């Protein structure tokens, strides 16, 4: 766990900090994520190398919950369900690991037109729902839906992720 922390701590803390914007909250989130990972270590399938993406998913999910609570919103009722998440990705090898070339991901994100990148970042890093994004940007909900989809599709093709 210690070596795992040494390997992923900066990345996990970076993500929590990016979402929450302050160190103490980010620390709490990262600690919680590592403990959850530790408790579920036996559920992870070593053959598929999912530790990194699972940990980052935990960090992201928890950080967004904290952010939403801060905004006075109810925390999500739908729990994080790694099984459901994995199920959808079960037929593809965990490509996240191969995508860890972060420059590639950043470039793919940066290369999106602003109108696609902005809602995508608001969803992922600010934890906003598509309804909230539509309100904040003053555009129709249907437009947000399609821009989120288009943005991810474009990144997918830039990153070479295939089914």
């Amino acid at each position: 766990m210690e070596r795992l922390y040494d390997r992923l701590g900066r990345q996990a803390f970076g993500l929590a900090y990016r979402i929450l914007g302050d160190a103490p909250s980010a620390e709490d989130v990262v600690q919680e994520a590592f403990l959850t990972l530790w408790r579920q270590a036996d559920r992870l399938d070593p053959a598929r190398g999912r530790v990194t993406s699972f940990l980052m998913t935990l960090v992201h999910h928890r950080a967004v919950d904290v952010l939403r609570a801060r905004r006075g919103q109810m925390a999500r009722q739908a729990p994080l369900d790694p099984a459901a998440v994995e199920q959808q990705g079960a037929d593809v090898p965990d490509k996240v690991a191969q995508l860890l070339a972060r420059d590639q991901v950043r470039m793919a994100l940066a290369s999106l037109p602003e109108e696609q990148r902005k809602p995508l970042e608001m969803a992922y890093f600010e934890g906003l729902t598509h309804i909230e994004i539509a309100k904040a940007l003053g555009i129709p909900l249907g437009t947000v839906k399609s821009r989120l989809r288009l943005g991810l599709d474009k990144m997918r093709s830039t990153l070479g992720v295939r089914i």
Partner: protein
Amino acid sequence: MDCQEVDELAGAYALGALPDDSLMALRDHLASCQRHPQIAALLVVARSLSVAAPEREPPPRLKARIMEAIRQELGSAEGVEEAPPEPPPLSWLRRRSRPRLAYALAAALAIAVLGLLSWNIYLQVSPGGGPHTLVRAFTDGGAATGRIIYLSDEKIAMITADGLAPLPADKTYQVWAITRNMPASIGLFNASQSGQAAAIIQVDLSEAQVVAITIEPSAGSPQPTTQPVLKARI
């Protein structure tokens, strides 16, 4: 929710941007519909965004905090172990020869899980496992399945199993390392009510050909007295 709506919402779903009611409806749909393979790719892309955030050095105290919290959880697991007859949720290995070794075993567990996880990462780079890690699936298990992971540098074997029959109080699972047809006991463990077990054993398996698990009287046996419920070739 129909297929068209699911496709429209796929981006928001992958990014975690759906309100609860839509999320539930979409998950329900996906549970019974195979027509949306592209969602897996969108999830992969959305998850890759986690590395788009700049890395940041956490304060040094965070590592200490996390390791301390793990130690405390291990400590409370020992506490359960000390209080029969209530079975612990995950039964850690009991060693017959040195029953007071709980603390050392907790440490071994920490090292082994660390090894497992680090190796996990290693696998991402090198499919097929590292030179110092051996992974074998148990067979002969009927409904039971399991796996042994052996870290040869650390001389630690980690056994996980599922689908084991919970045993009465006067029985235990016993693990044997079999070298040139000679079985040697390397530890005892119990399964949870749901049939799961995890055991960490500090043992040198470099000479062993087979690791087998049998059901024995609760104090363990000097030699196996029943047929193995699980067996792995090393």
